[in-house]
């Protein structure tokens, strides 16, 4: 997936790229809440990952979308409270997502 060519689309892609860091920070904060025992924070975290999975590829960041989808899919199969193994896996998936975002910036 990629955006059409043209200055308007270049600007929109740049805007999306710029917003990625904030999205990543928000995901990190949401996961910290979930990992800290706040089960209610799981739903917004999964929704944010879902949104990122859907939008990143549209803006040409397919690997970010795939990484977000992997984290979303894993969380869909788990319910809080998370044990150490699940926490470790989520952190691994989020770290992978972070690496994809940083490589896209």
């Amino acid at each position: 997936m990629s955006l059409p060519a043209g200055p308007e689309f270049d600007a929109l892609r740049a805007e999306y790229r710029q917003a990625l860091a904030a999205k990543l920070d928000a995901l990190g904060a949401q996961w910290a809440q979930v990992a800290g025992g706040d089960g209610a924070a799981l739903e917004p975290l999964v929704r944010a990952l879902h949104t990122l999975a859907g939008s990143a590829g549209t803006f040409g960041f397919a690997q970010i979308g795939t990484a977000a989808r992997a984290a979303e899919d894993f969380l869909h199969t788990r319910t809080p409270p998370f044990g150490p193994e699940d926490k470790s896996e989520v952190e691994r998936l989020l770290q992978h997502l972070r690496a994809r975002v940083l490589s896209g910036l």
Partner: protein
Amino acid sequence: MDKKAVYAVTNKGDAELSGVGTSLSADALNLLVLIDGKRSVAQLLKAAPALSEKQVEEGLQKLARAGIIAPASEVTSDAIDFGFGKGSPDESRAGLESLKKTGYYVRIARRAAKPRKLGPDERINVLVVEDDPQLAKLLKVCLQMENMVATVAGKKDEILAALRAPPKPDLILLDVVLPDVDGLAVLAKIREFEALKTVPVILCTAKASREAVLDGLRRGADGYITKPYNVDVVLKAAKTVIGLP
């Protein structure tokens, strides 16, 4: 009807699901979404409880006559695997479980019953329901480039306000996973209201499973586009459901 028969989607059927311009009936489209080259007719019947055996039989015959599906043994492997990224070759429990798999990809848009011709100063009004601000902006820019007027809403109160305010939208692009309301519940409400029930709705969502697609179509969506997407696909789908050339 041979209930052990297995059908697969042909290249022509593939085009129906990804070509943003289908003329198939709702029942036929539902069946087409279910057919994966692995399920038997008996399993299709279980996976589509809303359809009677007769409807399934007639639907399969119609799709086969149109060359949209064919016995799985006659279809090339590429077409059989279409859209099912993680399908297992041996799905002995091929029912609702297999529908829940992600990785399905469709670009469905049902053609408008009548073509629409715009007057010289007439413009198409589109309500874009999308909670990702950058994606909403992208859609708005693209729609404006097509001389359409886009209104964006990302939350429940914004959606309600946009639906109540004139002019009535000619089209709604509807995300499903939203912060404070389910897009499918929004679709249900739209279909309940006399003034809005005929407005075409295209679901644009990252919910990418056969089950999600079926659910959206059964609830009255005129199109279903899985994210990520190319914006030109969304524009083509928009024109198709409105009846524009």
